[in-house]
């Protein structure tokens, strides 16, 4: 703990420039790595130590969603356009992408809730809560990848070199979700409504995204909304990389990535500025 003398100054208004707040946020994201790892490890091991099925739980939801849609398709309850790949693989990869998105959006809020009582008592780098959420998501992704590789093997799905780009697709997904999540976290901590709204909202949004079916290509307003939904290229390309298909909407995909990066910077600054105000009001 021997380091150079650091001086902390607390005043009513934020004196520091936006840029220095941002730099401090980045610095803390890096330096609070141990705390983030510890929080994630704590939550994950506590969750699985209390359960019999353990790790299997993280794949129950995507598998059951997949099962429902496979049943609906095969029984002709719904008619879906051809996905180009085996439908179970399509649904599983889609729900996997969707799970990453929802987990990262709610990640920071959920982790913060577990530290709620500490938040108002001990001054620890709050950036660790963001990283901890991401670590937990990555852990779940890892489990799902194992199931997915079994699926790919069973269905003899071709994979190609493109799978080496998977980290990029994963990064894009996490960055997008985390940025949105970080933006709503301060308000979500104040008002429980935000968290409650998220579940139905994400369910509706799922049907406007290519998660369980290929989006129909209408040449009208709805079609354009579906096409320009930023989640469309995120989910599609996530899947395409895994199953060795071509990229879609490449330039839009890249600009979403850059946009997410910018959004993340803004959200991080917003988060850092607002957290003392939030702490004051949710304090235990």
């Amino acid at each position, binding site marked *: 703990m021997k380091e150079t003398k650091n001086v902390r100054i*607390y005043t009513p208004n934020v004196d520091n420039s936006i840029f220095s707040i941002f730099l401090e946020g980045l610095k803390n994201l890096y330096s609070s790595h141990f705390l983030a790892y510890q929080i994630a490890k704590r939550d994950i091991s506590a969750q699985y130590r209390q359960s019999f099925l353990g790790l299997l739980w993280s794949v129950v939801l995507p598998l059951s969603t997949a099962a429902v849609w496979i049943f609906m398709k095969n029984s002709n309850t719904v008619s879906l356009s051809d996905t180009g790949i085996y439908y179970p693989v399509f649904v599983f990869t889609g729900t996997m992408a969707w799970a990453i998105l929802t987990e990262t959006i709610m990640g920071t809020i959920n982790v913060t809730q577990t530290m709620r009582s500490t938040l108002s008592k001990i*001054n620890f780098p709050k950036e660790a809560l963001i990283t901890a959420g991401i670590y937990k998501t990555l852990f779940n992704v890892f489990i799902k990848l194992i199931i997915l590789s079994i699926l790919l093997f069973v269905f003899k799905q071709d994979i190609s070199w493109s799978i080496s780009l998977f980290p990029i697709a994963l990064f894009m997904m996490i960055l997008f979700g985390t940025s949105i999540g970080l933006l709503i976290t301060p308000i979500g901590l104040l008002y429980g409504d935000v968290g409650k709204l998220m579940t139905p909202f994400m369910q509706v949004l799922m049907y406007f995204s290519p998660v369980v079916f290929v989006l129909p290509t209408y040449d009208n307003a709805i079609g354009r909304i579906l096409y320009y939904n930023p989640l469309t290229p995120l989910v599609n390309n996530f899947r395409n990389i895994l199953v060795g298909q071509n990229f879609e909407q490449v330039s839009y995909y890249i600009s979403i990535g850059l946009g997410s990066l910018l959004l993340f910077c803004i959200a991080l600054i917003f988060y850092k500025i607002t957290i003392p105000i939030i702490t004051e009001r949710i304090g235990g």
Partner: protein
Amino acid sequence: MEDKGINRETLVEVNNISKKFCKDLKTSLYYGLLDTMKSVVPFSKSENNTLRAKEFWAVKDISFTLRRGECIGLIGHNGAGKSTLLKIINGLINPDEGRVVLTGKVGALIELGAGFNPILTGRENIYNNAAVLGFSRNEVDEKIDSIIAFSEIEDFIDSPVQNYSSGMKVRLGFAVAAHMEPDVLIVDEVLAVGDLGFVLKCFQQIDEILPNTAMIFVSHNMPMVSRICNQIILMDHGVVQYQGNDVSKGIDMYYSTFNTGDKNIVFTDDSTEVGHVHINGLDTEQCDIVSVNWLDDLHVSVDLNFKTKRGKLPNVNLSIFDKEYRGVAVLSIDEREVSGDIGTKARFTFSHKELQLSKGMYSINLIISEKKNTSPILRVNDIAKFQVSYKEEVWPPFMLKTNLKVENA
């Protein structure tokens, strides 16, 4: 606290800190939302120094500075604003006015065992807690044996924390916290739990840390405050009542805020009432506080009114309590000397020669029973208060007059 000869740089500077809170949750959340929005719009310095509807000052205009090796005590009633002040100093919430400057590593003993998960083992939770307190992984690896040894729960360190007793959890939490090496240490009332041996160990540890830190100590334990603090702030409703280096004066003022003068009836069978109480001839209801010099005689007269003609003398017992309501003495009487019948009113006068209580405030409790220690009739706490005056202040409750003879041997 003496200068230990270590560099005594200023580590804590608190300048005119104020903080307002809102009484109503919904309004508070709404203001929170407003503040959130305002804080991110550049160049909108919000109006902090006026109260909005339903707001009040939880902390108003507090200033102090603290050097290494110094300790300031924050005392006051529950809700006086002590914890809010600590939160501001700790950087958890922003002040609405003023400025705090902290130099060096800040450690807080406010919540022990933060980040514990009950399912996980003690060992795992040491890592969780240490991470929250700002340790690096290497530091925990290095110190874990020492932490476990300090906690004295080696046998259960690999059991889930949910099976621990609350005292064991506190032990583990303090063991981790004790291994911080802070420049500024903030201690809120956390050490009151745990068994005596451990509490002593905690204070021993704090004594060890103190010379190298600037410490801010919130406590209701006045002997502790007077032992370790060299500055004191007495707060009430967010404002300073007393601030200075005269710690005992601050503590006296704190105690005097509890002097409501109200008798506190603990038990009664409705047959007997306490009337006037005189101390050294002065009616305690008429004057503020009766002052008695050290080695003066103490005469306490208690008037008792009985519903019916009493007859046989009851057993009347007076005991003296100090300002922390610790019993320090009982006025012992030789029952063989007391006899006779009484009617519906009687005055009982207790005389004690050469009072050797040390300087301070004392209160008197009354117990009346049919026979000694059985069949209680009336029990009243605080029937009267008195003050022992002397030039010297000592902490033990008695100052026994003593002769010293020195001989060459």
